[in-house]
C-alpha cells in the first residue's frame, strides 16, 4: 500500500507545483483565445483536471517542457469550448474591452498594443502569444497548437506583419 501511495503523493506535488507556477499563464492564454474571463477560468481549471488524469501519460512520454505540455492541453480545451454548440449559442462578451483592469501604471501604448494583439485573427494571436509572450520555441508552438512547424512559421510571420500594420496604422488614427 505504501508503494502505491508514493506515486500519488509525487503526482499531487507535481500538480500543486504546476498550479502554482503555471495557472496564471494558462489563465491568460485561455483568455486570449476565448476572450471571456469566465470561460477562461473554466478552461484553465479543466486543463489541470485533464493534466491530472493524464499524469501517467506525461510520465511515460518523459515530457521535457511541462509548460508546453500544459499549454497544449489548454489550447485543445479552449478549442472544445469554442466548438460546442452550447458555446456558439451563448450570449457572452467577446470584445478585448472586457479585459480585467490593468494596474494604474500601465502605459497607454502598452494598452494599445495589447488591444492590437487582441484584434489579430485567432490563429495569429495564438502563435504570437505563445512565441513572444510564453517564450516557447517555434517547435513547441507547433506542438502546442497541433500544426506543422512550417505552418507555425507562416502564422508567426503573417501575425507579425498584421500586428505591425495595426500598430502603425493606429498612429494615423
Amino acid at each position, binding site marked *: 500500500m505504501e508503494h502505491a501511495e508514493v506515486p500519488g503523493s509525487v503526482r499531487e506535488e507535481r500538480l500543486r507545483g504546476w498550479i502554482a507556477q503555471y495557472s496564471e499563464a494558462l489563465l491568460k492564454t485561455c483568455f486570449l483565445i476565448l476572450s471571456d474571463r469566465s470561460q477562461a477560468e473554466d478552461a484553465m481549471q479543466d486543463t489541470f483536471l485533464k493534466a491530472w488524469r493524464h499524469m501517467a501519460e506525461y510520465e511515460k512520454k518523459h515530457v521535457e517542457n511541462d509548460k508546453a505540455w500544459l499549454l497544449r492541453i489548454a489550447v485543445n480545451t479552449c478549442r472544445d469550448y469554442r466548438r460546442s454548440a452550447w458555446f456558439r449559442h451563448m450570449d457572452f462578451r467577446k470584445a478585448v474591452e472586457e479585459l480585467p483592469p490593468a494596474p494604474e501604471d500601465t502605459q497607454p501604448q502598452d494598452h494599445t498594443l495589447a488591444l492590437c494583439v487582441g484584434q489579430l485573427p485567432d490563429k495569429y494571436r495564438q502563435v504570437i502569444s505563445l512565441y513572444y509572450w510564453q517564450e516557447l520555441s517555434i517547435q513547441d508552438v507547433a506542438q502546442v497548437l497541433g500544426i506543422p512547424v512550417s*505552418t507555425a512559421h507562416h*502564422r508567426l510571420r503573417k501575425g507579425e506583419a498584421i500586428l505591425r500594420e495595426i500598430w502603425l496604422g493606429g498612429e494615423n488614427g
Partner: protein
Amino acid sequence: MKQLHLGEDIRRALDAELSGLTVTPSRQQRIFEYATGGQKMKHKISVGLVLAVVLALLSLGALAAALLSAQQVVEEKAVPLAQGNDSDWRVNTKFSPEELAEFIRACSENGIDLDENDQIMQALREGEGYDEEEAIMAVCRQAFGGTYGQWTIAQRHWFQQVMVQIGFAQSVHEELPGPEDLTEEEARARMIAAIKERYGEDLPLDDREAYEVYVEYHADDPDGAAWYMHCSSKGREIARGYVAALTRAGELLTVADITPQIAQPQKNPAEFTLTEAEAIHLAAAGIRKQTGADAPLEDESKYRVFVHQRGANSPDAELNWTVNFISKTKDWGFCATTVNDATHEVQVQQADVGPITADTIVKRYTAAYGAYGEWTQDRWVELGREAKALEASTLEGKVLQATEYIPEGDGLITRADAEKIAFQGVGLRNGEVHCAVLIDAQPHPVWKLRLLCWDENFPSSLLTEIDAKTSEMLRVLQFASDNYDVDPSYRIYTLERTWSRLTLAEKGPVYLACNAVVHAFGDMTMDEPDSTAPVWDANLYEDPEVDGSTVRFRGKWSGLSDYLVTLDADGVCVDVQQLDGSGTEPLPVDTGVGENG
C-alpha cells in the same frame, strides 16, 4: 514613427494588460481539489431525491403540450418551406418575406407568439426575409424557454435533426441516452441534488432566471462521465459555477464548485462619475481636437454611438469608457476612443474623418449602405464612378479606379443566372453568394461572384468569373476557409486580371508567383494552404529566380519540391509546374525564425 520591438513590447503589453487575471493561493487550492476530484461519492437515492425527480417529471409533463406544438409547427411548416425553396443546385438558407410570414402565422395559430421586439418580428414588419435557422431558433427559444444550452438534450437533438433536414447542417452531434440509461430528467435531478447537498440546499439551480444549467450525455466518454452538468449563475453579481458528472449507471463521479475566486470586492458601476452623454461629448471633442476635422459625431442623423463602461470589476481599476462612433453616411468614417472617467483624458484609437478617397470609399459606402455583399449593381456603378474622381494611394484604391462596374443590361445574363452557373460550376450545393458584381471586360462583361460554401469537412470561399454574354465559366479560384478570408478583400470585387496587373506593378512577379503556386499545389483543405507550399519562406526556399515572365523556386532541403511559374504581361499565371526538388540535405529541426522587428 513608432517602432515595434516584437518580443519585448508584446511581453510587456500583455503582462500589463492582463495583470488583473490572477490566481490566488486559495484559488489554487480549489483548482487542485477540483482537478483531483475529491472523494468519489456513492449515494443511495434519498426520499428527497425521489421527490425531486418526480417533481421534475411532472413539470416537464406540463410543458410537453407546448413543446409538441412548437415542434409540430416547425416540422410541418418550417421544414417544408425551407426544403421547398431549395433548388437542385443550391440549398437556400433564407426564408423569403412571404415564407417568413407564413411560418410566423402558423406559429401564432398554434399559440406561439414571438416577442414583438424580437429581430424576426422586425423583419416581418419591414417585409424582409430571414435566415431559416434563425427563424426556427427564435420559435424554439420562445417555446422551450431560455438559451440553446438550457434546452434538454432531446430538444437540442431534435433541433439538430431539423437543421440537417433543411440543409443547414450535415449531421447531428448531440447524443441521446439509450433505453438502458437514466433518463435526462433523472440524471439532471441527481446532479442538481448532489450539488445542493454539497454546496447549499438553497441554491436556486432550478430557477432559469438565476442559473443556466447545461446537461449533456456521452455514451463513450473516456473518463466514464456519461452525464455532465454545468451550472453558471446569471446576472451581474459575482459569478458562481458548479459542475457534476455521473456514470452511465448514475453513480456520482464528481461534483465541484468552479466559482472563480475574486480577490477583492467589485466596484459598483454607479461609481462612474461621467454620464454616458458626457463621455460621448468628451470623446467627440477629443477627436475634433486631434484631427482638426469638424465631424458631426454627435449628430444622430450622421452617426450612431456605441458606448461601453470598462473597469467596474475591481476597486483599484481605472474606470474608462469605450466610445465608438459608427457613421451612417459616406461623408464620414468610423472613430474609436477611450475616455478616462476620472481625468477625462481621451485616447483616439481610430478617426476616419478626412475626405473620402478611393482608398476608403468601400468602407464609407459600407457605413452608409450596409455590407457590400448586399449592394445592388447600381450601387457598385455609383461607387465606381465616384472612385474614379478621387485620390488613390493604396493598391485597393487603384484597383477600384481600374474596375469598370456597369449596369445590368440586354444581351447579358442576369445576376440570378450567374449565381446558378457559379453554383453548378463549382458543384457545391450548400452555400450562399456573398457578393456579385458585373464588370466591363474584353471581349465581354464578366460577372464576378464570391461564393461561401459550407461543408462540415471543407468549408470554403470561391471566387468565380462568368462571361456575362456567353455564360461560360472563365475562372474559379478556391480559398480554403478560415472565417472565409480572401486576401486581399478587394480581390472579391474586381477582375482577377485587374488585380494581377496592379499587384504586379506594385509588388512584383514573385508575389504573384507565390500566389499561383499556393493555388495550384497548396492543400486547400487546410486553413493555410500556403503553409503546405511555402515557397515564400526564405528558410525553406532559395531566393526566387526571375527570368522575364518566369519565376523559379528552388527548395533548400530534400523533400521540398521546386516550382516553375509562368506569368503573362498582366501577371496572370498561365502555367505552374511542380518539379523534382533541388535540395539534398534534410530540413534542420529549428530553422531559426522569429527575428524581432
